[in-house]
């Protein structure tokens, strides 16, 4: 497991001081997958570099399996770093080494003898499904295969923590799927603790157990993935669900607009039609997205209802259906007033 306490990182350039990370607290249990999301410029990559200690944090501590990593001397740090395997962006491989030679790199650095090294590399190639491509050079591999090489290299020294820094960016959707499947499998088989830093919400929905949102160098919201998804008040939950395409302003005028979030697993698929029966009102479906994440149904919809329908009745109906709703926009004198807040990723 990995515990990060009060991690801060400041950069100073002459008179200008900037705080890139401000007292970050995170912990990931053994076998757990934590995703850190946030817009670019939030400090994600600085956080990644602090965790694998490529960049020294200004203050705070990072403890992996009981070993404090900050404050170590350079040589001790190289040894300690072996407990963290880092997966970089897909394209990063040594271009003049074959897949097998790339995977062997950390083993060479550790001074593992040749026979043992070759055996371990073969084992890793099989683990990531690349045994038949061992002697290919990076330019002969697809993006997804290169990323598998990166994962195998990260695993070479049997780390207990895997740090994935934008591991799926630049990959096509099929390759993203295969990388996600591989990471899940590794967590399952090796009990790895995985900390991923990403802006890919789809990946987060598929793989993360817990999510933390980084903004301006601070963790502003975090929690278990499913809790966030069913909480209509959670900004992070909203960010995680695919956002409806189109502008809010294109929404059908005249009615009151509700945002509805699936709050339980027992939402009847026919809830939309049931509104008509229960409330005697016509419902306009504006946007909707429903998916099953780890056998839990999660989703959200935006609907428009007649302006004269009492709010209390709507709330009661929705909660009977296992849904949570909140009013996004209601008609008011002279125009529509926006109630909800729109969040940009």
């Amino acid at each position, binding site marked *: 497991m990995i515990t990060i306490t009060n991690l801060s990182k400041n950069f100073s350039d002459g008179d200008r001081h900037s705080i890139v990370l401000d007292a970050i607290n995170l912990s990931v249990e053994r076998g757990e997958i934590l995703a850190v999301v946030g817009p670019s410029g939030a400090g994600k990559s600085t956080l990644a570099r602090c965790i694998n200690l490529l960049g020294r944090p200004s203050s705070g501590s990072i403890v992996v399996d009981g070993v404090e990593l900050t404050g170590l001397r350079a040589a001790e740090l*190289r040894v300690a770093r072996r407990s*963290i395997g*880092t997966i970089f962006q897909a394209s990063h491989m040594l*271009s003049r*080494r074959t897949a097998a030679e790339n995977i062997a*790199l950390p083993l060479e650095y550790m001074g593992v003898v040749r026979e043992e090294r070759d055996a371990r590399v073969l084992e890793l190639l099989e683990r990531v499904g690349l045994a038949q491509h061992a002697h290919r*050079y990076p330019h002969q591999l697809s993006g997804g295969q290169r990323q598998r090489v990166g994962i195998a290299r990260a695993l070479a020294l049997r780390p207990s923590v895997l740090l994935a820094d934008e591991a799926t960016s630049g990959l096509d959707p099929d390759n993203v799927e295969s990388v996600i499947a591989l990471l899940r499998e590794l967590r399952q088989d090796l009990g790895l603790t995985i900390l991923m830093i990403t802006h890919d919400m789809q990946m987060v929905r598929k793989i993360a157990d817990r999510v933390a949102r980084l903004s301006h160098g601070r963790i502003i919201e975090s929690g278990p993935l499913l809790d966030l998804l069913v909480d209509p008040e959670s900004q992070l939950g909203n960010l995680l669900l695919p956002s409806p395409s189109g502008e809010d302003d294109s929404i059908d005028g005249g009615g009151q607009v509700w945002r509805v979030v699936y709050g339980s697993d027992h939402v009847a698929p026919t809830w939309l039609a049931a509104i008509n029966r229960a409330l005697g009102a016509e419902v306009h479906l504006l946007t909707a997205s429903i998916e099953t994440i780890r056998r839990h149904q999660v989703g959200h919809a935006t609907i428009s209802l007649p302006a004269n329908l009492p709010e209390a009745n709507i709330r009661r109906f929705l909660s009977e259906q296992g849904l949570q709703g909140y009013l996004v926009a209601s008609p008011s004198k002279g125009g529509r007033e926006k109630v909800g807040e729109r969040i940009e990723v």
Partner: protein
Amino acid sequence: MSAAETFGREAATTLPGTPWSKLPELLVPAFGETVVMVGVVMIIVFALGLPLGVIAHNTSPGGLFPRPRLHAALNAVISLGRSLPFLVLMAAIIPFTLLITGTTIGIPAAIVPMVVAGTPFFARLVENALREVPPAITDLARASGGSDLQVIAHAQIAEAWPAIIGSMTVNTIAMIEYSAIAGTIGAGGIGYVAVTYGYQRFDHTVMIATMLILIATVAVVQAVGDYCVRRARRR
């Protein structure tokens, strides 16, 4: 005394222009001298310039061990070495050359200024080649547990190797040119023959022959260099 000088004195008294049949006798030893001179210079330039380029790159702000002051100092030295025209440099460092080789003429005396001019040139080319390696490659090697030396060897130099070979080619061709300039201080080699016969005695046959040899030599060096770069790229 170089082969060209021996031949030159004899030829001057007997022949107004060198006949084609006598050319090999004059040019083959001279070409050998050029090869030796450039070869020795390039070995020293590589041995000195590669580490200098690596240090210059890694003391820079994004390098493995940033040392702004050292970087600025190295930068100044490299730029200084590159800013003087070779002819001026050669004359300016004569006392240094004399100190090292005990002479101011001939091949050893030419090698000193060629190394002094060639090393900063090569260091700069190496620094540029290393800068083209994505920083993520260095991170990757560090995250894999590499020491600074391992990171430099396996990630930086290994990734930049094709570019470094290309730099060797450029540098070798520059040194062939410098060897011809060094011919003016009696360094021997093809350049000396071109200056003494072609230029000072208006011997057009020798002039044309030396030009052809230089053109062919540069073309061969370039072709071999390009071939090595392609091989090194592994694609």
